[in-house]
């Protein structure tokens, strides 16, 4: 599927990520596509991680997990969680094409985070635009620049 987010939608997605996740103490949150591209990101200002590599690995990892799901007869596994000593990572699928990644410390409870991630996923779905609309937006913004 081809998809797109216009500038307004991206602003909206980033404000959703900030309000719903960063404001409850999450360190970094990323919305990526299954090709490993970063669509939106938001952090608490202290993030030193290499997020492009993380996105590439996360997309690959999720692909591998989906292949495992099919082996055991599931259509897919929609979420993944890796527990670390001081930071943990939570991955959740949004629609068929996107992945929401959250990196958080021990001060955020996993249950609460999962509730919030579910909310965020719903809100992001409403912000999706499709390719024709993306192109229209791009042409608009180019003619604005002219």
């Amino acid at each position, binding site marked *: 599927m*081809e998809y*797109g*987010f*216009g*500038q307004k939608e*991206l*602003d909206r997605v980033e404000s959703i990520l900030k309000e719903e996740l960063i404001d409850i103490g999450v360190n970094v949150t990323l919305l990526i*596509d*299954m*090709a*490993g*591209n*970063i*669509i939106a990101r938001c952090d608490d200002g202290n993030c030193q991680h*290499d997020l*492009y*590599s993380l996105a*590439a*690995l996360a*997309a*690959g990892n999720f*692909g*591998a997990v989906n*292949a495992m799901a099919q082996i055991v007869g599931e259509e897919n596994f929609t979420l993944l969680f890796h527990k670390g000593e001081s930071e943990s990572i939570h991955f959740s699928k949004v629609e068929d094409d996107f992945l929401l990644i959250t990196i958080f410390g021990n001060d955020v409870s996993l249950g609460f985070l999962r509730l919030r991630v579910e909310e965020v996923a719903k809100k992001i779905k409403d912000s999706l635009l499709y*390719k024709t609309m*993306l*192109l229209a*937006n*791009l042409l608009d*913004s180019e003619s604005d*620049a002219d």
Partner: protein
Amino acid sequence: MAFINLKKKEVQVKIVYYGPGRGGKTTNLEYIFKKFQERIKSDMVSIKTHGDRTLYFDFFPFDIGKIKGYDIKVNLYTVPGQVKYNATRRLVLQGVDGVVFVADSMALRREHNFLSLKNLQENLAAYNKNIFKIPLVLQYNKRDLAKQGIQLLTIERMEKDLNSKLKVPSFGASAMSGENVVPTLKKIISIAVASLHKELK
């Protein structure tokens, strides 16, 4: 298709190095990484087996500057070349914008090149992409081995074998010494960006 971020004025382009096992895909990336190290902010990610063969992929992002006010970020990937890792290869190809096919010039590996190119065609088709339409560059790697007396396929032979129908740009190269590694990369980036530009018009 490449990801275009209108807000940050950034374009992410995905380039994948494809080809038969032990053909030099990882060596291409290693050379580029070393050559442009001061311009690459992150480390090269390599997921390898104990025997140093690529298990999943190698990856690093590479900023190439601005085109029409947009920052172009090229994400370079390799795939594992071994036949048995096809599922992984297909995963890495998802969302690809341009492919460098690294063929092995050794006469012994002629058959491997055919099979891998055919496999590329099949895997692209799984994403509704056509090998005749996608930005593609062929690289005939390991030309340096001729000096060691190893029997190589001539460039003409390889063109006939692999490029007679595709008719895409091709380079004789040596990923070990770096010969034609950067021109191959420049070519695929320019074709991929031009194709993206055309698609957006």
